[in-house]
């Protein structure tokens, strides 16, 4: 698969459609699975890893969902290409940085991805735009069932599906939603919300959270436990809390408009102004400002900008995407200059996403 072909689309999670997509960016379910006749990845030899990879590919190719998949050999990719896949959330940072034979299989919609030889032999991921956990769960169930017909998943009657880390054992499921919560951040209510989520054992992490600082007010909420409850119960556990968070965020947005209209309008306009005029800008600052502009669009404070455009910029201004779009490797300084140019061109003429590539 040519990675360049992916730069033309923005991928499922940033499509900006689906229920509640003003706040819920995407819904995701992943399953951790291992093959019974091999050691877990961290203890597998180079030969084992190659065998696991081949065994899974050969077997998955024989079932219906296997036919629509494209494989990318992550082990032989350049650093920038691995980073590119991370930015699109098709592979994890851990998978990008790992050693040895490993790959990812992706369906054409970029909804399903199968990571081979991440922390577990197989990580199945299914991602839908907006709030659609149920849809993602129904889809991944089909994928998992088909693969289970041909692959002997390691299973123990008491412990369930066996995983390399005991934190994933049992169902092996991680259910998560990516939320955009700028108003809760501005009104300083976000910490309180997180603390209450922790009490009901849900985990929160920031987007691209390499450090602890969540960038651009994007947060991922997910289940922390995988054993002792059914998959449906865990999907519900996360699903039940999302409407509450959506309600908090909406009320915080209303509060901002009602009580601090001038202030918010000023903040949003300044953010928009910087994005349209900056001569050099970092990825972090870009994401922060895009987050504010996104809120401005949703509050009707900025006209003329489409939500899908903002979402698209969120991924296309990331380092690897930017370099792919320019067709060359750039150091940090040059990237910051290129990013600023890309943003200026984009906002000058409305939808300029494709024109910039030709430039």
């Amino acid at each position, binding site marked *: 698969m040519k990675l360049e072909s992916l730069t033309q689309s923005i991928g499922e999670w940033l499509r900006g459609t689906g229920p509640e997509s003003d706040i819920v960016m995407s819904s995701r379910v992943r399953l951790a699975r291992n093959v019974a006749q091999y*050691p877990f990845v961290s203890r597998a030899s180079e030969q084992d890893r190659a065998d696991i990879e081949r065994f899974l590919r050969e077997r998955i190719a024989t079932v219906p969902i296997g036919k629509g998949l494209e494989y990318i050999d992550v082990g032989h990719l350049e650093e920038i290409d691995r980073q590119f896949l991370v930015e699109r959330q098709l592979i994890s940072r851990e998978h990008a940085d790992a050693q040895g034979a490993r790959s990812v299989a992706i369906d054409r919609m970029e909804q399903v991805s199968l990571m081979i030889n991440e922390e577990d032999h197989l990580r199945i991921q299914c991602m839908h735009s907006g709030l659609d956990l149920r849809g993602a769960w129904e889809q991944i169930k089909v994928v998992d069932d088909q693969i289970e017909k041909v692959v002997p998943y390691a299973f123990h009657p008491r412990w369930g*599906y066996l995983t390399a880390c005991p934190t994933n054992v049992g169902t092996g499921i991680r259910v998560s939603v990516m939320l955009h919560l700028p108003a809760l951040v501005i009104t300083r209510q976000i910490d309180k919300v997180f603390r209450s989520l922790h009490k009901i054992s849900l985990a929160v992490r920031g987007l691209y959270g390499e450090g602890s600082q969540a960038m651009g007010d994007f947060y991922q909420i997910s289940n922390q436990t995988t054993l002792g409850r059914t998959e449906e119960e865990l999907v519900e556990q996360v699903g039940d809390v999302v409407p509450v968070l959506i309600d908090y965020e909406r009320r915080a947005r209303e509060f901002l408009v009602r009580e601090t209209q001038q202030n918010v309008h000023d903040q949003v306009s300044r953010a928009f102004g910087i994005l349209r005029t900056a001569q050099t800008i970092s990825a972090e600052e870009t994401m922060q400002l895009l987050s504010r502009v996104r809120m401005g669009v949703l509050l009707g404070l900025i006209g003329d900008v489409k939500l899908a455009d903002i979402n698209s910029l969120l991924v296309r201004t990331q380092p690897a995407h930017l370099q792919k779009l320019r067709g060359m490797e750039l150091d940090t300084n040059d990237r910051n200059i290129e990013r600023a140019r890309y943003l200026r061109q984009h906002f000058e003429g409305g939808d300029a996403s494709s024109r910039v590539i030709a430039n």
Partner: protein
Amino acid sequence: MKCQHCDKQAVFHITELEAGAVRELHLCEDHARNYLNQSESEVETPEEAAEGAVGGGALTGPLGVGQTADELALLDQRACDMCGITFFEFRNQGRLGCPHDYVQFEKELEPLIANIHGSTEHTGRRPSRGPTVAGAEPLPDGTQDLTRVIGLRREMKESIALEDYEKARENRDAIRSIEDRWIGPSASTASEAPAAEMERGSE
């Protein structure tokens, strides 16, 4: 051994696993009580929480509270019959070596898993098994029998290193018969064994 916070005798030896790193605590009774109370009521900041969630590594919580240092040392030396990982290695890396570890270290993992999940019993979906390939037998729910090949493969390597080709051939045949049974002959992993050397060794 002295408590690490005061001069009293340490009676509690606590091992904490977090995100792949291990922390050992040796505490007197008073400090142990403080510690345990504190870790229960501790409120994580969002930053800590985010860190803990990264990589699914929230392996926190006391393991084997009240074990003596000697007991811990003995436990650490125990190794998996299949993949050979020691409990010490697992504690250091936070990752298990193979599916059999859940059987081999069941007693040791139980309190750890109870602490992470608040449960020690899977209630979710179970495999609906048929033959994974034409000619193979349908697998039972549990896959322990197939997992035995991990140990046999290790033994075969050792036999070859010791030039005990007789033994290596036995290992290879055992692997083949298990794999043929559950995943079909075409998927056998024993085919890459240095067959020529084994044959030569039999003369």
